[in-house]
């Protein structure tokens, strides 16, 4: 019952939010007229197709991707406070992108994100080595240190090579959809979707992987292989999301942990609903960020950061989010 109400609410918010972000402050009569009369040069039509549609799509995909990555990292490290941001994977990918942009490497933005992917992969595998020695909150602390390290290096590099871009980089480290480059976005959402499909494909085997190496081997699951595939996919998704919008914090903790209360520990359900709700959450946050203090647009991480920090505090007080499901 609780589950059904949750699913219904999510769908309701999804539909209303999509309508809002596509049509808010837009003269819809004018828009319909211009579509009818094939006036593709009208400003309403241009805003709709070149700003509203890509931005709405981007918020959904980035949100879905980031929260799914949160789910994956949480089940791989068996720690509910893991996600791309707290483990420093987002900011390491960010460093890659900034390096590419600032140094004006002879690549397109797409290759800059590849640089980001490589750096973040190295970071994840280092984290895996560390995770064998530290546990729980100490591990997340390592991630936060990594996060600070890479953000600071990014700022340092910017100051050193192109100090006029410092404003842009600082904003970008807090995440914003206003720098979304359409020419760049269209080839990339395809990769995000592919990554999401790969992760969902392995989601039911994750039920067994979280039992530990011994149990998963004796149940016939090649645990190491699945972990590798998922980690690489997560790094790719994170790096692409970061290269599109900058570093968005805490989505990967807020959404998976909340959704888990409703879906239970079974990974397939959890993964699917986390990605849906993650998309909606980021889209909502983006709408707020755009319209709350209009005409000033606030960075999206300011909003997710506030919610996320509250979440962290509640977690530290209550101790555990799992296993409280009853239906």
């Amino acid at each position, binding site marked *: 019952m609780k589950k059904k109400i949750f699913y219904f609410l999510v769908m309701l918010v999804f539909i209303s939010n999509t309508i809002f972000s596509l049509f808010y402050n837009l003269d819809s009569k004018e828009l319909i007229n211009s579509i009818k009369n094939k006036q593709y040069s009208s400003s309403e039509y241009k805003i709709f197709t070149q700003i509203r549609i890509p931005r709405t799509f981007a918020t959904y995909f980035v949100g879905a991707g980031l929260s799914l990555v949160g789910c994956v990292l949480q089940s791989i490290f*068996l720690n509910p406070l893991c996600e791309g941001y707290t483990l420093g994977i987002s900011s390491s990918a960010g460093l890659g992108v900034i390096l590419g942009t600032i140094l004006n490497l002879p690549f397109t933005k797409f290759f800059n994100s590849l640089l980001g992917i490589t750096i973040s992969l190295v970071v994840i595998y280092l984290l895996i080595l560390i995770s064998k020695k530290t546990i729980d909150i100490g591990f997340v602390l390592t991630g936060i240190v990594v996060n600070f390290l890479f953000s600071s290096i990014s700022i340092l590099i910017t100051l050193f090579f192109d100090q006029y871009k410092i404003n842009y980089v600082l904003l970008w480290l807090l995440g914003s959809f206003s720098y979304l480059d359409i020419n760049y976005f269209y080839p990339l959402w395809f990769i995000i979707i592919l990554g999401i499909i790969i992760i969902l494909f392995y989601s039911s085997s994750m039920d067994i992987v979280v039992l*530990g190496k011994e149990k998963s081997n004796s149940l016939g699951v090649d645990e190491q292989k699945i972990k590798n595939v998922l980690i690489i996919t997560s790094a790719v998704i994170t790096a692409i999301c970061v290269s599109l919008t900058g570093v968005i914090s805490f989505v990967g903790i807020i959404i998976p942990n909340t959704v888990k209360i409703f879906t239970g520990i079974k990974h397939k359900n959890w993964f699917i609903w986390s990605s849906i709700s993650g998309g909606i959450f980021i889209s909502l946050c983006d709408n707020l960020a755009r319209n709350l203090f209009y005409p000033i647009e606030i960075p999206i991480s300011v909003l997710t950061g506030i919610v996320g920090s509250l979440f962290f505090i509640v977690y530290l007080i209550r101790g555990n989010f799992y296993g409280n499901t009853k239906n």
Partner: protein
Amino acid sequence: MEILKIEDLYSGYKNFIVLKNINLKISEGEFVGLIGPNASGKSTLFKTIVRILKIQKGKILLYQKDIKKYKFKDLAKIVAFSSKITDYSLNFKVKEFLVLARYPWGFLNDDFDFILSELELKELLYKTLKELSSGELQRVLVTQALLQTPKLLLLDEPVSHLDIAHQIKILDKLKKFNLENKLTILASFHELNLASEYCDKLILLFNGEIKNQGLPSEVLDYKTIEEIYNTKVIVKENPISKKPYVFPVPIIWRNNDKKN
């Protein structure tokens, strides 16, 4: 028919070998007990059989076929291992957790009411694992291994940390499956007397080597036990089952013994 045959096996962890020169045979339908002090290599043997650890030398044959030639999933259809699980998995509900046992079979044939009623788990199905007592959890772990419908069941200390009622309950059920369904079982024990009562054959491991194997009456010889466990014991016969029974002798009584 032989189900498991181990030849000259050496195995262990990266930089140190635990098991040395292991040779053993297990026939179909046998209930074999693995005994030995802590750190004698019992768990290592299990982990090597299910390929969690790599074989460094020698061979393990399952139905006359080298286990290296099995796919992980095919191996899981024949051998089940009730191993430790991570703390994270304690968030599963009992039912969700048990169903995972059907993974190697593609979740087919979920009709396992029979096994559930045998182990009296039906009333626990909707609890989470962390709500269970250690006896119940142990029963769930054994049940999960049984639900995998293996030919060979490996149990790492299935009854340790349990009171005597729970120990007997679990072992009785296992014996029943062993006799009625011809399930081959290899289980490790700390409790020598339980091993002696329930097992057709015992294997005594010490420092990674097999010290002795055979019928309980052959293996549980007081000289060997005293030497390996480094403690004084007396071995007598259980009057009903005629199996050997090991009595430890506390230090205060040892002097009296000498006087007599």
